[in-house]
């Protein structure tokens, strides 16, 4: 709770240039999702790929503690995270994470948009499908009503509420808005170099097409010698 509060304060006073859906989604992750979900393979400095500034990354990292070997008494030590550390899990261990979540393990976010069946669209759909259960619905312990799920319940309590996040760029934080934004962020964590991939691809294809044209002309000229009678 305390961390949540500090983060909100920092963001409220901080940069006002969060504008892409991914950046807003990162804000949602940072303030809401990251209290349960891990990002085990993404480092703080990876966030530069979203356009997050280096000072912001440093301050974000330094709010988290990471294990740092043993102290002189042999007890585990921690230190503030460096930008090169993985963002990791809010829980110190998997069993702690399960204990805090009725035995379920909140899935890691690193590749969720890839591994989740149905992909990003499905994630948006789940996030938007929380409603009040119809009268008389009996839900299992630790389950929440969600119309997107096959059995109409999910282990995750409704994460998003209207106005829960105060977007730095002034966008109104409705549930659909936040669902779209956070999914854009998840899509980025799952496909981190997508933009560079597409840009490089266009270059490479254009180059190969050019080379193919050259070789095509060359090949025709070479082979024409055979067809013409000598």
């Amino acid at each position: 709770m305390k961390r949540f509060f500090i983060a909100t304060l920092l963001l409220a006073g901080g940069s006002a240039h969060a504008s892409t859906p991914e950046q807003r989604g990162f804000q949602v992750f940072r303030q809401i999702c990251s209290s349960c979900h891990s990002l085990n393979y993404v480092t703080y400095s990876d966030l530069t790929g979203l356009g997050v500034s280096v000072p912001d990354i440093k301050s974000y990292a330094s709010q988290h503690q990471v294990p740092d070997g043993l102290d002189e008494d042999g007890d585990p030590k921690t230190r503030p995270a460096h930008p090169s550390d993985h963002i990791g899990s809010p829980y110190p261990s998997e069993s702690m994470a399960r204990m805090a979540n009725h035995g379920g393990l909140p899935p890691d976010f690193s590749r969720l948009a890839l591994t989740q069946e149905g992909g990003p669209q499905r994630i948006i759909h789940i996030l938007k499908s929380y409603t009040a259960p119809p009268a008389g619905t009996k839900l299992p312990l630790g389950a929440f009503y969600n119309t997107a799920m096959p059995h109409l319940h999910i282990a995750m309590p409704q994460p998003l509420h209207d106005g829960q996040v105060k977007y730095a760029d002034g966008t109104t934080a409705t549930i659909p808005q936040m669902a779209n934004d956070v999914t854009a962020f998840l899509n980025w964590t799952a496909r981190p170099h997508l933009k560079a991939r597409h840009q490089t691809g266009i270059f490479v294809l254009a180059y190969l097409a050019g080379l193919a044209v050259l070789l095509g002309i060359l090949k025709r000229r070479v082979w024409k010698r055979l067809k013409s009678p000598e």
Partner: protein
Amino acid sequence: MTERSNSLSEWLEARLPVISAFRREYVDFAMPRNLNYLWNFGAFATIALGLLILSGIFLALNYTPTVTEAFASIEMIDRQVSSGWLVRAIHMGGVSMLFASLYVHIGRGLYYGSYKAPRELLWLTGLGLLLLVMTTAFAGYILPWGQMSYWGATVVINALNSLPVIGKPLAAWLLGGEGLGNTALHRIYVLHFVTAFSIVGFVVLHVAALHVAGSNNPTGIEPAKPDDTVPFHPYYTTKDGLGLCLFLMVYAGLIFFAPDILTLADNYAQANPLVTPRDITPEWYFAPFYAILRAVPSKLGGLLLAAGSLGVLFAVPWLDASPVRSARYRPILRIALPILFLAFIALGAAGMHPPTGFWLWISRIAVTYWYLYFLILLPYLPRVEIPKPLPSSLQEPRG
């Protein structure tokens, strides 16, 4: 320039005649003049192999072959290593491009009878290459230690275990006396390298065999007159070059714009020995053989039938009783063989779907046809099939 470089090349030539050998085998080498674009796929496979080896070496520099670190090191390559995502994409896309080229290459060999005398060894070394490529691909797929890696390896090692006599010791040697863990991963990593470089050796053999017999051609008639052939350069360098450009465009389209379609998303989750993913499906290039494995309701039977479907290819030069090489002049084979290709594709599709109902029957029909083709049609069809008259020269226009 001339005098010194001449004396240098003479000096080299007298000691190691590489320049004249290169000229003989790759510049002046006589090629039938009527090869179509299907003859490009060997060059495609070579290029894909080259890119795989190159990218593989650079991936290996950042990869850690331990159970705890393997998955994280792959994630690091994909996320944090400079251009690591691109090197890995080249490697991952390369496998599919290599298999696709090989399958077309083999299909072309079947269609134009390129396995017939005097090219039997060319065919056999090629099949040896296919087996090595498959082993390498399988070993490589385990290395990221994702869910599909782990469970694919589990399934294959258990299948290996069920082989009579050799199965148990082979599996035990691979695993090093424990379950699928650090020891096995390390061995599989080394296996991946050893087989990868053996492939290069086999390619040399394959090409050497090719250069003894020379290329087959769409008519299946050996070149007779001098003008039936053209020198490799510049005719086939330009033709292969053009084909390669188009091949590389497909390759690039795949790795830059559709990297997800050829990989299974489940492999982006770290291996978990306690949870098997819901649908384990192999990579597409193994799917046909996987479908055969599942088409038979017997463990050993499925295994033998799957292995036999490849094994039977080795016997093709001796199974095919027809003296006519090219299917162009064999009216029945010309229909029977494309059906075999369809059966192979159907098996592939069946291998990617759950083995129930429709897909199970598709795979059973297809595998039956597969064996029917090789064991019945190839040896006995020539008794009833009347071949079309062969042209007198490979240059004669198709009629």
